């Protein structure tokens, strides 16, 4: 248990036999049309139910449940906080005549700071400082704060910029993610989609003070503004023109195939696992925010024993000529499972990213699907 917790791939490798793993790998790596255990197409997601604004005590909240019963609840809370510039920055400004003071002063107040967004993930069975929750929250936070919004959309400077109230005050955003049951598969897609919806439904009270005054807000919750602004209905913009929080997709490659939203069995035979964060860019296209490799659990599986090495089968099968793989000097027998070794080719990574980003690709499909969820 302790070593499983340490591992980043701690999606609890299912106890599949080498023969099952090999079968699964072969069917998933069929050229052109992989056969998935649940009959989905390679780019199809698992069915899910979603609802937003379920908790009255939060600024925004969402719940997503997958059909297999894993559920996540995300609550977003915002607090007003005083902006402090670090002391050394101020001092350097004061003493340095070379600096263009106008352009630099209070630049934190304009562009915001990544640490204003705090994220914590609660997974049953894990402590909150275990590797998996920490890794997941860093991954999702990094793409959230990393996005630089377009100027015309009212989100200049991305999420960070939106949190600025004035030069001395800002919002601090707490995103708490609650997984309600032990993860049956790597929980990243679930958590990312839920966070996306929760942020979309997040509202901040309307500011009544102006300029550099200490902020005070309208008591009327009905006039509160969305954190991610919606264009007013008079403009009749298409929904794809809205600024939207990023989503992180889990992509695996098996053989030459690229497969999305893998379940627990599929991820166990993956050659490479990538988490790719994308969001809507200007002009409706997709933009890439971050890529991270995730340790594929296939490296931890147990190898199968080919008949030629099996003592029980001695003499039962004719010795076959097997090609030695050059790198390891070990035999690769077809139909016998070997834990994955080594890494991933650059071309494979490029292919996976292309599948996500291309026009009409999976990234767009997911974002469109999320846009279909009515956010109240």
């Amino acid at each position, binding site marked *: 248990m302790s070593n499983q917790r340490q591992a980043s791939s701690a999606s609890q490798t299912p106890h599949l036999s080498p023969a099952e793993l090999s079968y699964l790998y072969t069917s998933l790596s069929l050229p052109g049309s992989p056969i998935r255990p649940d009959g989905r197409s390679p780019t199809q997601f698992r069915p899910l139910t979603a609802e937003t604004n379920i*908790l009255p005590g*939060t600024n925004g909240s969402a719940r997503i449940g997958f059909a297999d*019963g894993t*559920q996540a*609840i995300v609550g977003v*809370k915002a607090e007003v906080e005083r902006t402090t510039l670090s002391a050394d920055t101020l001092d350097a400004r004061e003493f340095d005549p070379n600096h263009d003071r106008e352009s630099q002063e209070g630049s934190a107040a304009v562009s915001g700071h990544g640490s204003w967004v705090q994220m914590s993930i609660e997974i049953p069975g894990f402590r909150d400082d275990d590797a998996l929750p920490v890794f997941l929250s860093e991954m999702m936070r990094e793409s959230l704060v990393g996005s630089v919004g377009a100027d015309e959309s009212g989100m200049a400077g991305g999420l960070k910029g939106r949190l600025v109230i004035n030069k001395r005050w800002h919002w601090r955003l707490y995103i*708490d993610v*609650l997984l*309600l*049951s032990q993860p049956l598969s790597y929980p990243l897609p679930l958590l990312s989609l839920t966070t996306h919806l929760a942020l979309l439904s997040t509202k901040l009270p309307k500011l009544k003070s102006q300029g550099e005054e200490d902020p005070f807000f309208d008591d009327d919750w009905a006039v509160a503004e969305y954190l991610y602004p919606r264009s007013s209905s008079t403009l009749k913009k298409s929904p794809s023109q809205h600024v939207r929080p990023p989503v992180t997709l889990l992509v695996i490659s098996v053989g030459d195939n690229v497969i999305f939203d893998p379940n627990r069995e599929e991820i166990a035979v993956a050659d490479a696992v990538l988490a790719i964060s994308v969001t809507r860019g200007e002009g409706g296209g997709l933009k890439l925010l971050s890529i991270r490799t995730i340790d594929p659990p296939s490296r931890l599986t147990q190898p199968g024993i080919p008949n030629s090495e099996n003592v029980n089968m001695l003499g039962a099968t004719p010795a076959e000529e097997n090609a030695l793989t050059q790198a390891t000097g070990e035999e690769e027998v077809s139909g016998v499972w070997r834990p994955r070794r080594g890494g991933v080719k650059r071309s494979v990574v490029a292919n996976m990213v292309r599948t996500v980003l291309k026009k009409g690709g999976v990234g767009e499909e997911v974002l469109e699907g999320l846009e279909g969820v009515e956010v109240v």
Partner: protein
Amino acid sequence: MPLDTSTTYPLTRLRLDGRRWNELRLLQAQISTNPASSGSSYLSMGNTAIMCSVHGPAEGRRGEASGSAGSSGAVVEVDVNIAGFAGVDRRRRAGGSDKQSSRIATTLRSAFQSHLHTYLYPHSTISIHVSVLSADGSLLAAAINACTLALVDAGIPMPGLLCGCTAGMSGSASTPKDPRSDELDPLLDLSLPEEQELPQLTVGTTTSVPVGENNMDDEGEETKVAVLNMDSKLHFTYIETMLAVGMDGCNQIRELLEGVIKESNRA
């Protein structure tokens, strides 16, 4: 904030949220909310919302004193998690175990360990996971009710529904009760602002399932107190009133929960 109960209540006889002294908050519940667990439930009492899931009875974890502890019956494990966004202000220290959640967990564990028919499942573990999504008073009582529903959903035998409710007094109640002028009323099902300023107790009661016709009428006598928790200062003369009101609340809740269970069976 001048709106505290102890000043306005004597004038209006209405509590902060407009209830009378013996009214429960709106209780809504649902069972089988999470197909991934053996039993699950969602329960809201006013603005307190709790999700509970039960796993088991299942084989206990390896290496964990399996010899002596579990041989006589199942071991109940309770894990309480109060979400960071549950309260009005976001809790600084998210996750982990704080005092409040570990106290609730201990109380729930001891209550259900003795309440359930654990002797039917030797060498096994029943683990209960409680997530508090929104906290507005009566946490322990709401958690007891949510757990009961989830355990019913999981099909774990128990002699009756274990229901919890809070009761308090509408003033500090530090002087002995005066039978002639009772200006202090007992209050049922406290919300968070009331809980913070008034003396209160949590009571959990259970009944045996009536067997045969003759048991149908004298149900009340079968009521047993399973949980009683109070940590505020109060003159002892008031306890009896509070307890009576709390137990009455438990009976009301029991009817509501029975309705929920019957409703879900019909669906």
